[in-house]
């Protein structure tokens, strides 16, 4: 038998073995219980399960999974270390390319990034890369043995990172390791951006975000909170005391439906609903001072992850009914399958192929219902999804006292509008080179949702990474 044939045979055996070993499910809080608390839903792998799951990885020589990852995590290598029981080393391996593994292990859409590319996917279930990533990062944190990476000698260059979300945190982490002095300016009183104001505790515990921010601080990153760049100091002013700027201010401008009754009491943007609950901890009112309208019957408009987060938050706040109203069908829903599945399990009801047309209120200005029209799917539109078309005369009213509008966000205009030289596109997103994050202003880079429009945490991190490398090059050439 030739070498090549031998190798092929070995691989086949490995695949067969992996196929026999099923993908290990993640233990979860029971749906009925968790629908009434804010504790995290998935409970994480045990050491034994993690090792078994890791043993399913074929350690491909040319791993496709790595190509699928926006920050090119060394997937087979860290999974190999888990299989060997060397969990700490696995975490360190992760951190070589990904500053926030505990977060990515929880909120990345692995099924459309790394896991979809897994070779096993063709013949069965892919390796649970996300769950293993989470496992290794959690293990390291629980051990309290956070290893600080090597920091290059100080360059004397200073970089301002505007916005402490996923893009900014990643850029800051990479730049500090390269020896630059880094300051993050965060507008809110807590750093983390969407990770603290948007994603609920039951999906991403805030203590994990805090640990990641503390890690960056331990590396030497200075974090200035409650500092609204654009108002207290403009980008042009920052450039007088910093050598370069990275703008990662996110997609913080809620889009409303522009239908009648949208300013009625009881109507929230998802940003407001989630910010009140997550950042301000309104679910703990009155121990925490920020109130929230606890509706009995809540409808969330939209079919993305933010809509799932909102409808599931409503249940936990005490809603008896929590509806998702979405104008297309389940197949077109942009939310992750896992989120849709979790929401359904917990009791969220889906009113599909229905579009809100008008919000109805009482004389005191409080919402009492939403009039919807039934839709049917027509020809595919530019997004490739079948376009929903209203069915004439099919209007119906759903009685609700709270509505959460979760149909998307525009770019936050605060920084672009106060930086006159900065080029933006017609939607208000900053024009930045996708290869480098460079804007039209020398020394000013941008990335994340402020450039691309609403996307995922890991895509924003990828943009932060690219920009950090480009900023490093720019500072070296200066």
């Amino acid at each position: 038998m030739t070498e090549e044939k031998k190798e092929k045979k070995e691989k086949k055996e490995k695949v067969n073995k992996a196929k026999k070993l099923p993908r290990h499910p993640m233990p979860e809080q029971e749906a009925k219980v968790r629908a009434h608390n804010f504790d995290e839903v998935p409970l994480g792998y045990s050491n034994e399960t993690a090792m078994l799951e890791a043993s399913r990885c074929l350690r491909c020589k040319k791993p496709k999974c790595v190509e699928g990852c926006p920050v090119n995590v060394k997937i087979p290598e860290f999974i190999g270390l888990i299989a060997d029981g060397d969990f700490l080393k696995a975490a360190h391996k992760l951190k070589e390319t990904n500053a926030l593994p505990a977060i990515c292990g929880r909120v990345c859409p692995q099924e459309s990034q790394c896991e979809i590319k897994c070779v096993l996917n063709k013949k069965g279930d892919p390796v649970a890369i996300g769950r293993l990533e989470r496992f290794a990062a959690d293990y390291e944190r629980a051990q309290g043995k956070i290893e600080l990476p090597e920091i290059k000698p100080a360059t004397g260059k200073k970089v301002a990172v505007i916005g402490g979300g996923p893009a900014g945190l990643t850029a800051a982490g990479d730049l500090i390791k390269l020896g630059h002095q880094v300051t993050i300016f965060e507008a809110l009183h807590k750093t983390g951006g969407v990770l603290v104001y948007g994603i609920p505790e039951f999906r991403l515990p805030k203590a994990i975000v805090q640990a990641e921010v503390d890690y960056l601080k331990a590396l030497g990153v200075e974090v200035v909170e409650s500092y609204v760049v654009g108002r207290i100091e403009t980008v042009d002013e920052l450039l007088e005391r910093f050598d370069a700027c990275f703008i990662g201010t996110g997609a913080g401008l809620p889009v409303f439906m522009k239908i009648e009754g949208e300013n009625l009491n009881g109507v929230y943007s998802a940003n407001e609903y989630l910010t009140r609950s997550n950042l301000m901890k309104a679910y703990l009112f009155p121990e925490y001072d920020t109130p929230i309208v606890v509706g009995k019957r809540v409808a969330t408009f939209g079919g993305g992850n933010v809509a799932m987060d909102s409808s599931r938050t409503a249940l936990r706040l005490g809603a008896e009914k929590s509806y998702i109203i979405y104008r297309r069908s389940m197949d077109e829903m942009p939310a992750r399958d896992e989120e849709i599945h979790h929401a359904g399990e917990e009791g969220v009801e889906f009113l599909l192929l229905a579009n809100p047309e008008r919000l109805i209120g009482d004389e005191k200005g409080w919402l009492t219902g939403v009039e919807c029209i039934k839709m049917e799917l027509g020809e595919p539109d530019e997004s490739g999804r079948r376009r929903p078309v209203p069915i004439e005369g099919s209007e119906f009213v759903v009685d609700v006292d709270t509505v959460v509008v979760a149909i998307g966000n525009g770019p936050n205009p605060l920084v672009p509008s106060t930086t006159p030289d900065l080029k933006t596109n017609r939607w208000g997103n900053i024009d930045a080179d996708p290869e480098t994050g460079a804007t039209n202003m020398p020394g000013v880079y941008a990335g994340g949702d402020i450039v691309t429009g609403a996307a995922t945490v890991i895509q924003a991190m990828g943009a932060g990474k690219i920009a950090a490398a480009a900023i490093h090059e720019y500072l070296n050439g200066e």
Partner: protein
Amino acid sequence: MNRIVAKEEFSQNPSVKMMQIEAPRIARKAKGGQFVVFRLDETGERVPLTVADTDPEKGLVTIIFQEVGKSTMKLGKFEVGDCLADFIGPLGQPTHMGDFGTVLCVAGGIGIAPTHNIVKALKAHGNKIITIIGARTKDLIFWEDKMRDLSDELYVCTDDGSYGTHGLVTKVEQELLEKNRESGEIGLVIGIGPPIMMKFVCKTSEPFGIKTLVSLPTIMVDATGMCGACRITVGGETKFVCVDGPEFDGHKVDFDELLKRQSIYLKQEKVAVERYQRGDDCGCCSECGGDE
């Protein structure tokens, strides 16, 4: 940071207090019409408050507040030397500066505070200032001297007649605008105070066709344009007060909607205040649920 360096009680019932906060960057940057957001402690809410005055050299920002809810009551208990967890600003658009000729400023109650900072800027810009300050009763009038110094003419009135002209600010406003018919020198009216008062300041000025600005005290959370809690209809369009405002053309503001939206959390506010006044809220860990 955010240390209170001066505190004064202007009136007791309702309690109106003045504080000077050490916030050098904000003091240097804040312009007339802009606001700040404060958060008292870890469990606190984010509360917007229009800047009453600044001292850029000493690095001080003056705020004036009426104790209406739990957060303002609690802030009232803070003493000189205490620090606020967060003091964020300056936020919102500054008052648009220009040569308006004469500006008629109508300030009601707590609205005297933001009006002061706006008048200061308009005066420095070379405008002639006529100011009307009014309140329910004499005790609630404050900063009369400061306003007199900045204004070319100052009128004081009280609803109960205990001081100055007996009657509402709009009565004096009406008289002054009537008088102005011939000279036509008033190019701008600014009305700041409780929403209902602003509504009537606008109603009074509307027939005279003089542009009238109001500063809207809406509910906010992040105050950077992210949540939309502060949205309000102006001229048929939804605007975010925190980034588009806080000042708007008062003749276009839907005040009835504003008044309704102001009432969203009245129930919760009552719960919070009762709990605070019972002493359940010791400001500690809240582990005991107020039992100890």
